[in-house]
């Protein structure tokens, strides 16, 4: 059928089956990939477009239904001459786009509102944008951006580009932001060549089973290839060099629901039309090992045959004599806390494509870690690393989930064998079933303090369900014992972490590597001890906060930059006000009760006791193009911008003069993974070094002193040294390249966990105000004040964005998110916070300089979410007396706890 309609103001036609989704027609046939697809099910709103001026999900509209009507997409917002609309400018200026995958949908939803309502209030903005999910921003800056775009007169304050030397500390808009607000950014599914073959992965419907494959001949005749385990040169991958335990394609046995069994490769329509029941797989289903108790039971079947007791790894920290010290404590608190599998729920599902170029393989993919991907693909395909090129696309959110391989080996192998481009885009249910999760934890904690409220001893054991494969399990099990006593000085410590294999989805890296789970336990203990001694909960923490000069439980003396006490000082006035407000509200008896809670955290920046170097280059071409060659992938957190700011000031030229090359393993050096909050600190230091190095070279060429002022104009660098100006002609000197490297100084941990696991730590304290409906068990978080010691805020807007986004994820962890294999494998049943669930957030940035960091900066990528759940759960306890032992605290769980508390008369 031929469909004629008006597309962004111009006549358009489309020919094909009328039941085709409008989103597919726009993206695949009309070339408008600004409209994003995050679920194809109406749940995420990334595909929001206007149909006759009304916002609709383009994934739910039959293209036949747009006949004769007007469709507007994000591409239509930008003026014909390329100027941004007011709304787009406002999004850019406010940092409302992080990864940017939700941005087109947000913009279109806001556009509908602003056409109907010139000056909407916050509530109207929330109603209008309620159908678009954002996993990065916590929505705060999105609401601000929409409201600001409606203000009369110079609504959007024009951003003045900072001059040379003034970039660090400035609220510079993202250097890669323009493409994010125009729909021009190319994500994993956006740049697939038209002639690419497609892969559909056939996955296990069983958590544990053996299988045999029948005759694949008939399928193979319809397809270009059907890949099985036999086609994978080295069929194992994994994060650790010595643990390659996860097959690319299962070989006769599956260990979790969603595990990849076969890859169907062919024309897109063909692979999509083949149903799973047409694929000849004979299953022998076995009872799965579900949960930690089943994995550790005496007769438990093994998940991996060579892993006795289903144990992946264990270890801990011992300092002083905790067992003995409890005897002398004035107050002791203990408890057991449990958390669930949590899904990253980035709005962009895994996507990418590969092509064989001679005897090299080139993979374009949404990833957090191009160099690790390169080495892993080389190993899986048994090629030399130099034969693999990873080109990261824009990444529509990662949060740790795009640190493991997903589509890479499948498209790589298929493209290699077939010598044609091959693409794979996960569906949302596939993304949720197949990829890693946050580790479910069971944490037993016991803390004791003296009569003055000074902590004396702690004993924490954390058991983790690491699912079917190791992934980042060892990282979690190592990191948690170091952090499990919380950001406090405790003389006697015993902590223990252990991870067990189960037939659950592989648990991997997720913002915080187990520390958010542990924080729920240690912060509950702080509340309880404070309450026992009648000390204010904030003051109790203040008394015990780690400070510069203190020794940690691993025996590390914190020489600098331990700003927890300052964070708590900053919260104190808010804390007092909130308590008074809660008391006043609760004086009126009613079914709603208010409470205030607090959570603290610390977080070691970078890998635990392991080298994690970054190398960054800054190049100046003969024509005067200044380029940051940045191997650190920006997954929305802003490293492209931050590193540019740092390099610019180190070099002494304005940030605006920088061009950017990001991630491509052929063009940039290894800057490590975007994980462990390390890019600002580690790659930032490398960028600083690169900028300084280039500056030195220029100064040397100009024979100028270190205070000289640089400027760049075309192929010439002017160097003003006092009254004298020298000009360097780059055409004569040739290209200049500055390089910087940094590897944070750490030492291994010994058998007792003693050593220097991290070069520096971030600290934070957050306060939550909640209102609980005690008849329904629902919790409304009303406000969060977050004080974070970031060392130095290189870009306060981006730092706030990380904190706000982390808070939204922390809120989800506390109140709604629980991944149940087979049951919550879509964004309909798996709930993440919407724009209406995230409260007002106030960020307070504390800058306790870290001398090792670039301009004193540390990291903030993960810390934002760690204290949030403890603060919310503490507030619920304050409001109701219920201490959550299991998260998420779903309405029925809280309700049942309130009822049983009443029953006990407490």
């Amino acid at each position, binding site marked *: 059928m031929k469909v004629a309609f008006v597309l962004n103001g111009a006549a358009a036609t489309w020919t094909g089956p009328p039941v085709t989704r409008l989103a597919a027609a726009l993206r695949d046939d009309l070339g408008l990939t600004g409209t994003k697809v995050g679920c194809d099910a109406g749940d995420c709103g990334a595909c929001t477009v206007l149909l006759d001026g009304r916002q609709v999900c383009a994934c739910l509209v039959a293209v036949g*239904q747009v006949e004769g009507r007007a469709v507007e997409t994000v591409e239509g917002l930008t003026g014909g001459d390329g100027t941004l609309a007011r709304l787009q400018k406002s999004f850019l200026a406010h940092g409302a786009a992080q990864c940017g995958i939700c941005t087109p949908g947000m913009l279109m939803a806001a556009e509908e509102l602003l056409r109907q309502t010139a000056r909407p209030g916050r509530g109207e903005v929330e109603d209008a944008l309620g159908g678009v999910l954002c996993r990065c921003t916590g929505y705060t800056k999105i609401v601000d951006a929409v409201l600001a775009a409606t203000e009369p007169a110079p609504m959007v304050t024009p951003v003045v580009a900072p001059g040379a030397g003034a970039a660090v500390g400035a609220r510079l808009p993202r250097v890669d932001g323009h493409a994010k607000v125009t729909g021009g950014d190319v994500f994993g599914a956006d740049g697939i060549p038209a002639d690419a073959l497609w892969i559909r992965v056939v996955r296990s419907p069983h958590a544990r089973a053996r299988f045999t494959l029948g005759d694949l001949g008939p399928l193979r005749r319809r397809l270009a290839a059907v890949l099985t385990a036999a086609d994978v040169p080295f069929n194992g991958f994994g994060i650790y060099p010595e643990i390659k335990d996860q097959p690319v394609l299962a070989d006769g046995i599956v260990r979790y629901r969603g595990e990849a069994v076969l890859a169907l490769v062919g024309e897109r329509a063909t692979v*999509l039309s083949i149903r799973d029941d047409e694929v000849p797989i004979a299953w022998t289903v076995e009872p799965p090992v579900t949960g930690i108790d089943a994995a550790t039971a005496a007769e438990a079947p093994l998940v991996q045959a060579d892993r006795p007791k289903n144990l992946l790894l264990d270890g801990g920290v011992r300092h002083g004599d905790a067992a003995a010290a409890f005897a002398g404590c004035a107050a002791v608190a203990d408890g057991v806390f449990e958390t669930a599998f949590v899904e990253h729920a980035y709005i962009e599902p895994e996507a990418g494509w590969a092509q064989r170029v001679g005897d090299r393989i080139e993979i374009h993919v949404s990833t957090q870690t191009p160099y690790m991907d390169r080495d892993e693909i080389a190993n899986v395909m048994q090629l030399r690393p130099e034969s693999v090129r990873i080109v990261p696309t824009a990444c529509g959110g990662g949060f740790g989930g795009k640190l493991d391989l997903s589509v890479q080996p499948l498209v790589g192998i298929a493209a290699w064998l077939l010598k044609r481009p091959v693409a794979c885009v996960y569906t949302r*249910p596939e993304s949720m079933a197949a990829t890693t999760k946050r580790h479910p934890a069971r944490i037993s904690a016991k803390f004791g303090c003296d009569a003055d409220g000074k902590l004396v001893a702690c004993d924490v054991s954390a058991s983790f369900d690491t699912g079917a494969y190791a992934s980042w399990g060892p990282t979690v099990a190592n990191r948690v014992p170091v952090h499990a006593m919380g950001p406090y000085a405790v003389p006697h410590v015993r902590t223990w972490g252990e991870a067990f294999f189960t037939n659950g989805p592989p648990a991997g890296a997720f913002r915080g590597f187990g520390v958010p789970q542990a924080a729920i336990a240690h912060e509950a203990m702080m509340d309880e001890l404070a309450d026992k001694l009648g000390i204010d909960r904030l003051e109790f923490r203040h008394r015990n906060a780690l400070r510069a000069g203190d020794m940690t439980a691993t025996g590390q003396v914190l020489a600098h930059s331990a700003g927890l006490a300052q964070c708590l000082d900053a919260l104190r006035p808010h804390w007092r006000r909130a308590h008074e407000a809660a008391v006043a509200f609760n004086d009126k008896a009613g079914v709603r009760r208010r409470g205030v809670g607090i959570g603290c955290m610390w977080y070691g920046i970078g890998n635990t006791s392991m080298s994690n170097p970054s190398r960054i280059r800054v190049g100046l071409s003969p024509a005067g193009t200044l380029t940051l060659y940045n191997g650190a992938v920006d997954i929305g957190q802003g490293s492209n911008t931050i590193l540019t700011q740092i390099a610019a000031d180190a070099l002494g030229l304005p940030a605006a003069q920088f061009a950017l090359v990001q991630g491509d393993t052929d063009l940039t050096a290894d800057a490590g993974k975007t994980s462990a909050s390390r890019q600002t600190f580690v790659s930032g230091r490398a960028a600083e070094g690169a900028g300084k190095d280039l500056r030195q070279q220029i100064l040397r060429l100009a024979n100028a002193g270190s205070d000289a002022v640089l400027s760049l104009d075309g192929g010439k660098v002017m160097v003003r040294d006092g009254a004298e100006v020298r000009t360097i002609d780059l055409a004569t000197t040739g290209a200049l390249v500055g390089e910087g490297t940094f590897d944070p100084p750490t030492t291994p941990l010994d058998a007792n966990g003693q050593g220097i696991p991290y070069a520096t730590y971030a600290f934070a304290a957050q306060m939550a105000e909640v209102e609980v409906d005690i008849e329904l068990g629902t919790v409304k978080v009303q406000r969060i004040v977050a004080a974070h010691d970031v060392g130095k805020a290189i870009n306060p807007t981006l730092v706030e964005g990380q904190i706000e986004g982390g808070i939204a994820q922390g809120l989800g962890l506390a109140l709604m998110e629980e991944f149940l294999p087979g049951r919550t494998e*879509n964004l309909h049943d798996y709930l993440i916070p919407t724009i209406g669930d995230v409260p007002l957030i106030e960020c307070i940035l504390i800058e306790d300089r870290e001398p090792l960091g670039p301009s004193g900066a540390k990291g903030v990528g993960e810390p934002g979410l760690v204290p949030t759940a403890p603060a919310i759960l503490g507030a619920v306890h304050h409001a109701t007396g219920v201490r959550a032992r299991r998260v998420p605290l779903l309405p029925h769980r809280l309700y049942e706890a309130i009822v049983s508390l009443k029953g006990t008369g407490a």
Partner: protein
Amino acid sequence: MARPHAVLAGGTDFYPARVGRAIEEDVLDIGAIPVLRGISSVSSGWRLGATTTWSDLLEADLPPLFDGLKQAAREVGGRQIQNAGTLAGNLCNASPAADGVPCLLALDAEIEIASSAATRRLPLDQFIIGVRHTALAPDELVVAIHIPKPAHEVRSAFLKLGARRYLVISIAMAAATLEVADGRITAARIAVGACSAVARRLPALEAALAGTRVDGHLGDRVDRAHLAPLTPIDDARGSAGYRSEAALVLLRRLLAGFAR
């Protein structure tokens, strides 16, 4: 129409059921059939054409009888879903958690059904007969939803409980229509959703309310025994016991709200 076909209206249930696979069945798209669209007032009451969307309803000038249904419309999905999804689609999809069903039960809605051969009408409680199961024959379509004009002044309301603010499937919801004369209830129609395979009216509660004054004590008249028709289940969104309690609380609040 010889072959079995799938009906497509707003697509908001149709497409989510077809993620990641080719759509190969024959599809009858009713989106562009003019006679199916729109809300009209007729002598016996109102006729909501089958492709009337939630947003159409919200923007229509309708009497207080429709306040509850409009409250439900505001809580369906997000704006995009309200702009595309239809009331009839909500009924035909027959989800236990369909927000439109308790409201339309409380409005005594009748469903007008047509095939190429004939038309017929069914009361809503005979139209939805199970989880994702309706009385429609393969060649039948819903053409309209009819709402009868009540005898007296009417008030109506709806309350929904979900685990987040937008885009949320109800854990439980309740709808009420009260006909009032001289400050007393002459007839009450109350329904609860997501607490049984199909949303259910609560006749005992309706009877208990008949004749009573619309005052601040209305909520107190709800008794646990009134919930007997409900058969809530445990699922990821809530336990059965919690659903019962929540239904009770929602009903009390819903009724108490009429005094305000």
